């Protein structure tokens, strides 16, 4: 889907992104993770040409981005940023419809798409479509910001620390929604963050960056279990590693199929940390597991968590 090929970007002779190569598969949720100044945002912004590339090449769906007119490229790629940047003089509907209008969609199609997106983000269209940005809470504004990025059904979504400025509870809700939307839409997402918990929760693949290079590329479990070096080990955090591992593994991985169990069931999608939390709270060493339809599948036992 995206191929970044030996890309370099320097400011004042100092490389911010240094011969970086990265391939992101279609449908992947790729998180660029690193501390500030590591070049993750610069990398992201070179994909939609907000920042010009010094050397190397970036291809989206096989096409060199420098060969596509910048505006046409950006209309194909959703873009959401931390500071959101909703247009304050436009309604929620007009904000979401920005790219569809630029692409000359028919009026009814735009209106239907706005309704669909507001519903996807659980914002009642009847209430929200005619509101102005200043009438929304921070979390609602960011929902509209992400809805706007998704409006024209782009093949690719770029997100630059979109949830860094909202409060923890709202952030948690937004992450859950984004994970759900990624599961249902199968969009390719490149997501920049400095928050390891956020990366572990959302990513299918994590690229840890330092000094303009990728230090390690892998699934959340690979990053936790086989850190490439001390930098990754420090970044991931030596303390609480076990709990982080539990948070990225799913109940489905440790299910004892067919065994009977009693009590409030866990879902297959729940993480092992949720299972651990439930066991601790209920003083139980085994809990039943059911599928989305509520059918009993088996159980998970405390011993399975550390297997």
């Amino acid at each position: 889907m995206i191929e970044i090929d030996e890309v370099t970007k320097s400011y004042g002779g100092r490389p911010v992104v240094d011969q970086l190569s990265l391939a992101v598969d279609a449908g992947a949720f790729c998180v660029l993770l690193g501390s500030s100044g590591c070049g993750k945002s610069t990398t992201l912004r070179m994909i939609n040409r907000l920042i010009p590339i010094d050397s190397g090449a970036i291809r989206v769906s096989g096409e060199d981005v420098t060969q596509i007119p910048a505006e046409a490229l950006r209309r194909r790629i959703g873009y959401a940023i931390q500071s959101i940047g909703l247009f304050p003089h436009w309604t929620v509907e007009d904000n979401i419809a920005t790219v569809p209008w630029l692409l000359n969609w028919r009026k009814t199609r735009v209106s239907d798409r706005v309704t669909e997106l507001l519903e996807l983000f659980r914002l009642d269209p009847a209430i929200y479509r005619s509101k102005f940005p200043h009438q929304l809470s921070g979390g609602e504004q960011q929902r509209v910001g992400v809805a706007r990025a998704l409006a024209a059904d782009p093949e690719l979504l770029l997100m630059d620390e979109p949830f860094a400025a909202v409060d923890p509870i709202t952030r948690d809700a937004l992450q859950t929604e984004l994970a759900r939307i990624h599961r249902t839409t199968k969009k390719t997402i490149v997501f920049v963050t400095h928050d390891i918990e956020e990366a572990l929760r959302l990513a299918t693949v994590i690229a840890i960056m330092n000094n303009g290079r990728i230090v390690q590329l892998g699934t959340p479990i690979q990053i936790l279990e086989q850190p490439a070096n001390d930098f990754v080990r420090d970044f991931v955090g030596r303390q609480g590693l076990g709990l982080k591992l539990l948070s990225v593994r799913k109940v489905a991985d440790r299910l004892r199929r067919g065994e009977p169990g009693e009590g409030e069931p866990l879902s297959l999608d729940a993480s092992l940390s949720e299972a651990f939390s439930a066991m601790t709270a209920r003083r139980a060493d085994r809990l039943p597991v059911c599928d989305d339809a509520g059918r009993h599948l088996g159980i998970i036992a405390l011993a399975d968590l550390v297997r």
Partner: protein
Amino acid sequence: MRGKRFLSSPILWIGLLFAALMLRMDALQPLLQQAFPGVEPVVYNRDSFLTLFLSQLGLVAAASLAASLAGVALAIFVTRPAGRDFRAMVNALATIGQTFPPAAVLAITVPMVGFGARPTVIALFFYGLLPIIENAVAGLEGVASAVREAAEGMGLSAWQRLRDVELPLAAPVVLAGIRVSVTIAIGTATIGSTVGALTLGTPIFDGLVGNKIPFVLEGAVLVALFAILTDLLFERLDQRLRVTAN
């Protein structure tokens, strides 16, 4: 509700007072004769006040329209990447235009373009440019960087960003600059009468030269009401703009 607000609007009452004084100043003749005995005539009558007003309105409108177009265009230019280097220069020129006394501009332009309306419009144009440029630059630069980045990242072209995002968001600040400029221009336009332009300043200067204080008073009151009324109309426009923008 709407009618009540209309009746309590200062625009209505100041407008009526202005119109009444302009059209029927002669009704004040007995009063003025008592206040200024021995002055004859006591009400300026070489031109009608309406003629003077319309002439001044034309001068101010021409100069302010030109200054607004030029000022906003220059502000747009110096806030684009291509024009950023010219920003200090444009600002310096505008400041010179503002600090150069309009009377001096008249002294320079009269030999070049002759007496009458033309040198007055030129002087008003240069004098009114600075507040418009300054406010328009401030308004355009005041657009939040997040909004700019989002607009660019969405794929709006440079022209679409200017037309659909930057100008509408800058509009209240731009308008405030035009408002200041026009209000100053109304007062300043009166000195055009010294080079033969017809304005409400004409009775003022005639009165000063001929030692006829009532003429000065009549001209000055009408100019003041004209400026206040214009300012109030701009205020109304500004409110309208903010309502639609928010």
